[in-house]
C-alpha cells in the first residue's frame, strides 16, 4: 500500500468515525444520566433529518449556493433541533416515564417499540426511497498531495469535536449539569436534595435528541435521508459508545473515531473482505464486552455525567 493510499484510508476512517462519534454522544449522554439505552435515538436522528430537509428545501427554493443557503441550512438545523428536542421529551413522557419503576428490561423494550413506530411511520408518510439533501456549500474536494478531503468531512469532524467540548463543559460546569450528575448518581437522593428530577430527565432527552438532529442532518448530506437511516448508524454509534465506556462523553468521541478507523483499516490493511465490514463493529462490541465490559474509558466513576 502506497503512502497516499494509507493517508486516504486514514482520512476516510477519521470522518466515518466522526459520524459515529456525533451520534454516540447522544446515546452516551442519556445512558450516563438514566442508565438506560435509548434505542429510539437513531430514529429521532432520522426524524430530525427529515425536518431539516423539508425546512432547508423550503427556505432555499431555487437559490444558488451562497450566503443564503448557509443561513437557510443553519436555520433548518435550529428548527430541526427544536423539533427533535420536543419529540425526544414527548417520547420520554409517553413511553419511558411510566416504566421508570419497572424492571430494567421494560423501558428497553419500550424503546425498541418506539424505534419501530418512528421508522415505520416515516416510511408510511414519506415513502421508502432516499431523498437527496443538497449541500448548502460548495463541497468540491480539497487535494492535499494525493490525499483528498471534502469540506463536508472537515465539518463533521469539527462539529463532533465542538459538540463534545460544549457537552462536557455543560455537564461539568453548569447548575443543570450538576443536577444531571446528581440524578445520575442517585435519583432518590437527588430528589430529596430539591432537584426536580423529572425536569432534569426531560432536559437530558431534549439535549440528546437535539444532538441527534445535528448528527442526522450532517450525515444526510452524505448518506441521504430515508426512513431507516438511523438504524445501522445508530447501532454502530451504540457500539462506539460502549467501546468508549458508555456514559462517558469523551469516551464516546474516542470510541466513534476508533470504530471508524477499525472498519476502514480492518478492510484496507488486515484484508477482511469488504462484504464483512459491518462485522468488524459488532465483533469489537463482543470483544469489549468480554474483555473490558466497562469500556476503554469507563473505569473512573466520577468521569460519568
Amino acid at each position, binding site marked *: 500500500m502506497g503512502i497516499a493510499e494509507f493517508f486516504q484510508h486514514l482520512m476516510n476512517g477519521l470522518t466515518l468515525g466522526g459520524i459515529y462519534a456525533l451520534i454516540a454522544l447522544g446515546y452516551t449522554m442519556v445512558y450516563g444520566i438514566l442508565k438506560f439505552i435509548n434505542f429510539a435515538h437513531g430514529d429521532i436522528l432520522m426524524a430530525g433529518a427529515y425536518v431539516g430537509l423539508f425546512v432547508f428545501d423550503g427556505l432555499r427554493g431555487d437559490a444558488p449556493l451562497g450566503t443564503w443557503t448557509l443561513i437557510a441550512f443553519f436555520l433548518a438545523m435550529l428548527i430541526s433541533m427544536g423539533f427533535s428536542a420536543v419529540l425526544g421529551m414527548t417520547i420520554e413522557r409517553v413511553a419511558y416515564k411510566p416504566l421508570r419503576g419497572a424492571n430494567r428490561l421494560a423501558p428497553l423494550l419500550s424503546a425498541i417499540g418506539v424505534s419501530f413506530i418512528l421508522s415505520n411511520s416515516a416510511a408510511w408518510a414519506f415513502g421508502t*426511497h432516499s431523498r437527496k439533501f443538497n449541500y448548502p456549500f460548495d463541497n468540491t474536494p480539497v*487535494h492535499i498531495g494525493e490525499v*483528498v478531503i471534502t469540506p*463536508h468531512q472537515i465539518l463533521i469532524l469539527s462539529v463532533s469535536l465542538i459538540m463534545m467540548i460544549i457537552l462536557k463543559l455543560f455537564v461539568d460546569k453548569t447548575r443543570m449539569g450538576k443536577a444531571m450528575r446528581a440524578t445520575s448518581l442517585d435519583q432518590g437522593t437527588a430528589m430529596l436534595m430539591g432537584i426536580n428530577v423529572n425536569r432534569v430527565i426531560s432536559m437530558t432527552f431534549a439535549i440528546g435528541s437535539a444532538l441527534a438532529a445535528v448528527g442526522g442532518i450532517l450525515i444526510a448530506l452524505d448518506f441521504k435521508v*430515508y426512513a431507516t437511516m438511523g438504524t445501522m448508524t445508530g447501532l454502530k454509534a451504540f457500539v462506539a459508545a460502549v467501546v468508549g465506556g458508555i456514559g462517558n462523553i469523551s469516551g464516546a468521541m474516542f470510541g466513534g473515531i476508533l470504530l471508524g478507523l477499525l472498519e476502514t483499516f480492518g478492510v*484496507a490493511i488486515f484484508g477482511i473482505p*469488504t462484504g464483512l*465490514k459491518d462485522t468488524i463493529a459488532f465483533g469489537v462490541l463482543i470483544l469489549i464486552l468480554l474483555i473490558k465490559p466497562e469500556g476503554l474509558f469507563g473505569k473512573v466513576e466520577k468521569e460519568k455525567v
Partner: protein
Amino acid sequence: MKKSMFVCFILVALLASPLFAQGGGESASPKIGFMGPMTGDYANYGVRSNNSVIMAVEQFNAKGGFGGKVPVVLVSEDSEGNVEKGLSAIEKLSSADQIVGMIGPVLTGTSFAVGERVQSEGIVMISPSATHADITSIGDYVFRTVVSDGLQGEVAGNYFYSELGYRNIGVLYAKNDYSQGLYEGMTAAFEAAGGKVTIAESFQVGDKDFKTQLTKIRSANPEAIYIPNYTAEMAQILEQATQLGMDIPFLSCDGFSNPEIYDLAGDFTDGVIYVGPAKVKESPAYSDFVAQYEAKFGVGPDSFATNAYDGANILLQAMDKVYRETGKFNRAAIRDAVAATKDYPGVAGTINFAENGDLIAYQGLYKVNGTTPEYLGSYTVVDGVLTKVD
C-alpha cells in the same frame, strides 16, 4: 351429501368426455403438459401462464389441429411452486399422460428439478419464465422463451472489451443475487474475451459508505469501474468517487435505467455507460393477443403469460411439422423441430433459440449525457460473439 355426489358425477362426466371423444376415432391425439403454481403464493403467475397455453391450444384445435385433423390435448398440473410437487407432477405427465412436450415450469427452482427429469425422459420443455442463467445448461431438451439473467452480464463483458476497448476493469458489487450474478456473468465474459477484472470489492445491501472500497479500487488503477447495483447504492458510489477525486469511467447495469438515479446523483451521472433493456417495438400481434386474452379471462396477461403463449405456439408448430412429415409424434423429433425454430413471429417479438436453448434476446446499451440516457444500440451475444442488432 346428495349435492356433492352430483358434483362428483358432473366432474367425472367432464373429465371423461375427452376420453370418449378420443375413443371415438382420434386415437392418436397427442398430449402436451403445462406445469406451474396454480395455488399458493405464486398462483398469479401459474394461472395466467396456464390461461395462455389453454388459449393457444383452443386456437390451434379450432384451426383443425395437426395436419388439419388431429386435435391436441392439454394436461395442466399444479406445482404449487414447490419442487417436490413439481417432481410428482412430471412423473404423472411423463408416464401416465405420455406427454410429448411441455410448457413450464414457471419458477426457477421447480424448473431446475423438472428439467433434470424431462432431460432424462427425452421430453422437450419450454419455460416461459425461469431466468436463472444455468437453467438451459441442464441439457438439450430444455428451452425458454424468456431472457436469461446471464445475457446481461455476457453482453456487458463483451461490450466493455470489444466496443469500449477496456482491458482491465474494477468491480464494486453488492452481496445479493442480482448484483453478484451480474458481476460473475460480466467477469466470465470479459475474461473469456481476454480482459481482466483486476479488483472486485463488495459491500452489504444498505451500506452508505463506500470510500474504503473506492480507495482500494483507485489504488488498483483500473481503466473503468463496473457497478451492477440498485440506484440507492450507485448514487452513493458515484458521489463518493467524486469526493475522492476519482476520474475513472463508470459502467453499470439495468438498475441504472431507473430515473431515480438522476434525482439522487444527477451531478455525477455524466458519462456513465450502462446495459439496459432493449427497445421493444409494439406489434399488432401483441395487441391482438392482449385483447383476446382479456376478453377470454377478464384480466390482462403478464410477461410470463406472454412468453407462455409464444412457447405453446412454438411447441405446437414443431409438433405439427413432425406430424406432417412422419405421421407420428416422436419426442426426439419434436425437440429437434423446436430447436430448429427460425425467426418465429411471436407476440413478444421474433423468437430464435441459441444452441443451448436460451432465447436469443437483446440488451440495449446507453450512455448518459448529463442526466439524459442516450441510446447506443441493441446487442446480443451469439455463441460467444457480441452482435449488434440495430
